[in-house]
């Protein structure tokens, strides 16, 4: 890669960070960086604080120790240049608001007063059409969003996050609660958009497989810190065993999927996640 990733400016720079919610330390001494053009996954078992990491970077959760820089600024000051998709919100089935209007909120949802007819209003409508096209939602964007499937809603929400041409997309479990074909489709869509729209991606996931082929780097989060590198470097038995302090095995299936066995999470969920979906 010409120039190398380390020469590019860091969009996200987290150093020696510790997050505390209530009186519980979620994680400590975590480092994480995302540079321009990168597709990075935040991985780790349930409840390890992956979403909290995104919220810390956005300034929605205060930091107990360490430093965070987002686009070179303190957290909370550059959010308008970020496309943020929080963890799975499915809209109530009775919600009768068009997908187009939900996408539009990403453009002018924070403006006071009513939209005035004119050049700006036309430009907004045009941009909404562009975004809907970009995520391939033209066929159903005019329908009430409550009546759309999970995958269709997710595409429209990605369009909303992209509305103001952000430099970085922060996606929190965008594949959660989608069926396997939809997971693959949304993962491919995000990767394509990252390239064509020139936007970096920071994606939180509990299963790396749907996004594995698109990833530049993974950040594996544990209570005592984070390990970062290419998937091949990080998702190994040695690295994860060192990170979690308990024996962990990484198995590779014949079709290239990775199965992580022995992650420290609730036993019931554990069997479900790695027996069923992985």
């Amino acid at each position, binding site marked *: 890669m010409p120039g190398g990733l380390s020469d590019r400016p860091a969009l996200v720079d987290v150093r020696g960070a510790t997050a505390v919610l209530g009186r519980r330390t979620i994680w400590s001494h975590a480092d994480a960086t995302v540079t321009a053009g990168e597709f990075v996954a935040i991985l780790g078992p349930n409840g390890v604080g992956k979403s909290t990491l995104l919220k810390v970077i*956005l300034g*929605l959760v205060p930091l107990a120790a360490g430093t965070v820089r987002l686009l070179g600024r303190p957290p909370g000051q550059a*959010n*308008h240049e*970020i496309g*943020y*998709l*929080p963890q799975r*919100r499915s*809209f109530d089935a009775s*919600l*009768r*608001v*068009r997908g187009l*209007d*939900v996408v539009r*909120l*990403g453009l*002018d*949802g*924070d*403006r*006071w*007063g*009513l*939209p005035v007819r004119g050049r700006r209003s036309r430009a907004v409508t045009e941009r909404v059409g562009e975004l809907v096209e970009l995520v391939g939602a033209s066929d159903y964007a*005019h*329908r*009430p969003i409550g009546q759309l499937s999970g995958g269709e809603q997710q595409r429209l929400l990605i369009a*909303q*996050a992209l509305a103001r041409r952000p430099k970085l997309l922060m996606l929190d479990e965008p594949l959660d609660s989608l069926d396997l074909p939809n997971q693959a489709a949304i993962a491919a869509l995000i990767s394509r958009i990252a390239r064509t729209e020139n936007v970096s991606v920071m994606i939180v996931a509990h299963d790396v497989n749907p996004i594995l082929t698109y990833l530049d780097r993974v950040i594996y989060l544990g209570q005592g810190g984070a390990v970062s590198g290419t998937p091949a470097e990080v998702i190994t038995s040695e690295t994860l065993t060192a990170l979690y302090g308990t024996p962990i095995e990484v198995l590779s299936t014949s079709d290239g999927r990775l199965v992580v066995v022995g992650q420290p999470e609730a036993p019931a969920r554990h069997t479900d996640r790695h027996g069923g979906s992985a």
Partner: protein
Amino acid sequence: MFSHPFMQHAFLAGTAVALAAGLVGYFLVLRAQVFTADALSHVAFTGALAALAAGLDARIGLFAVTIFVALGMGALGRRGRPDDVVIGGVFAWILGLGVFFLTLYTTTRSGSGNGSASVTVLFGSILGLSGSRAVVTAVIALVIGAVLLAIARPLLFASLDENVAAARGVPVRLLGFGFLVLVAGTAAESTQVVGALLILGLLAAPAGAAIRMTTRPLWALGLSAAIAVASVWIGLAAGYAIPKVPPSFAILAVAALTYLVTIAVGQLRHRRHVERRETDPANPQQPRIAALASSTALDEG
């Protein structure tokens, strides 16, 4: 009908209040906070009677207590959004207080005051508004409507997508409180028009109908206000034309009927849509056969 000053006052105040109720109602339905408005209408009842029991103008108690309780409910809930337990608790307790004040009022002051005050508060007295009172009511309602339109888009964002809106810098919590104040103001206003018990009809039915008629939020907002205003106009006219019909009842009857009609039309459309789907893609010739069948049926008939 407009030669009577009391009808002029009723139309002036009624139109403005309906406008506010329609606008606020849309967001109540969207945010699933209709129950909040219901609780606040009971607060309005209690507030009015508390003021009467204290020998004050009922309207002072109406606005002060309703807005105060709305803010309190918001503070108890998350991000300025009271939950069911908070609403239920406030609801019952405040209504109980209202009964207390009613007893206090009727036992200590009914000799000097108006004995039918509780009926007026519960069911409205739109035809009894004086000129100055109608103007004040209209001005307050117009201010509520204007504020709501000013915050419409961020409020829509916060209502549909709290977390993204918050990340975008929309003051979600403040909007939640601001909206509660608007709801409280509207509840207090509507109490004078249709009465505390019937407020919900004017807040929920027009908005419910509008939401079924269009999926564009800003259009639905305007439509909701239009339906509310039309309900008040038709209701007042009906109340005038038919002496036995109280205007409160007529207003709510129109609003409720509009809502029922939109439900019926929606279901009819849905059924036709499903039928078309079943015939169309599977066999493109089928519609023609269906048409032929229906034409022969007509011939036979």
